[in-house]
């Protein structure tokens, strides 16, 4: 009976928590497990963690490394300068089209790039 099943599930709220705890590494915080922490990770990376999340971070090397890596990737990405150079044919194409449309006069064409 569905209702009965629901009642049984509701009466056993610690089943999933116990299962999670079984696979968690040692040193984890009792108030928050890694799954909970990582579920909220986008928010933590974006705007910092709550006190509970900070406490978990202090005691969990796995989550600490994860946060460190994600922040490092974001920092390194900011350093990727625009270093790719388009081939000369890109300007040739621009010039040709602008001339065809009558927007750029042929006499204005120069190659000084």
């Amino acid at each position, binding site marked *: 009976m569905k209702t009965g099943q629901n009642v049984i599930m509701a009466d056993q709220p610690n089943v999933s928590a116990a299962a999670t705890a079984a696979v*968690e590494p040692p040193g984890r915080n009792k108030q928050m497990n890694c799954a909970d922490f990582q579920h909220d990770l986008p928010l933590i990376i974006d705007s910092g963690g709550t006190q509970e999340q900070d406490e978990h971070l202090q005691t969990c090397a*796995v989550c600490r490394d*994860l946060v*460190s890596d994600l922040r490092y990737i974001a920092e390194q990405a900011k350093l990727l300068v625009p270093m790719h150079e388009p081939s000369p044919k890109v300007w040739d194409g621009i010039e040709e089209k602008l001339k065809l449309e009558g927007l750029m006069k042929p006499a204005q064409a120069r190659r000084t790039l």
Partner: protein
Amino acid sequence: MAIRKPVPVENLQVVQNASSAAPQLAHESVGYESAGNATTFPVTTPKKMLASGMPEAEAIERAQQGDGECFESLYGMHKRRVYSLCLRMTGNTAEAEDLTQEAFLQLYRKIATFRGESAFSTWLHRLAVNVVLMHLRKKGLPEVSLQETLEPTEEDGPKKDIGAHDQVLAGSIDRVNLERAVESLPPGYRIIFVLHDIEGYEHNEIAEMMGCSIGNSKSQLHKARMKLRDLLKITRAERAGARR
């Protein structure tokens, strides 16, 4: 969910917060400047100068009056940034060149509408992003990718790292490896990562451009970073294996 039609450039209003507000043109740095909140190099010169020695503001003014040489100088100054954006977003050299060409053609046609309300580079950059998004929308492929990534399945979600303690990445990423890893991201992840983490757009700007929610933008960015982390760890392991 499809990519929303890009905003016409003449109607663009670049959203920026206090920390990212684009400085007035006359006070801009000659270094790399992001479109949004991200990296700006220290201001080193009072004005942006073109290779010819002409202030950028003057070149813009002349280009607005139809001066082709000044337009060519502006192309010379901004081509790398526009092309790099196109290349990173598409991952394809030929497409990136076509899109760079299209962005500058649109610039020439619309430069008279530039009013200096934002930095010229910011305005041009947003124009280029719109050109790329319009192209991807027409092409259709990223719509599929975005649909997949915006409505992720269980398998598609970020992998938990419970119990897996490994060496951190810090100090082990070089630019080439990161560029390659970004290139190999699925298109939906790559576009949002490029726009946010490389180009510095805010989530609200990305959401507006992509036609998704801010939450989706944040979620996809997180998945992109998680995927990159996996890719970079694989690269590092391969390099370590090759050295043995």
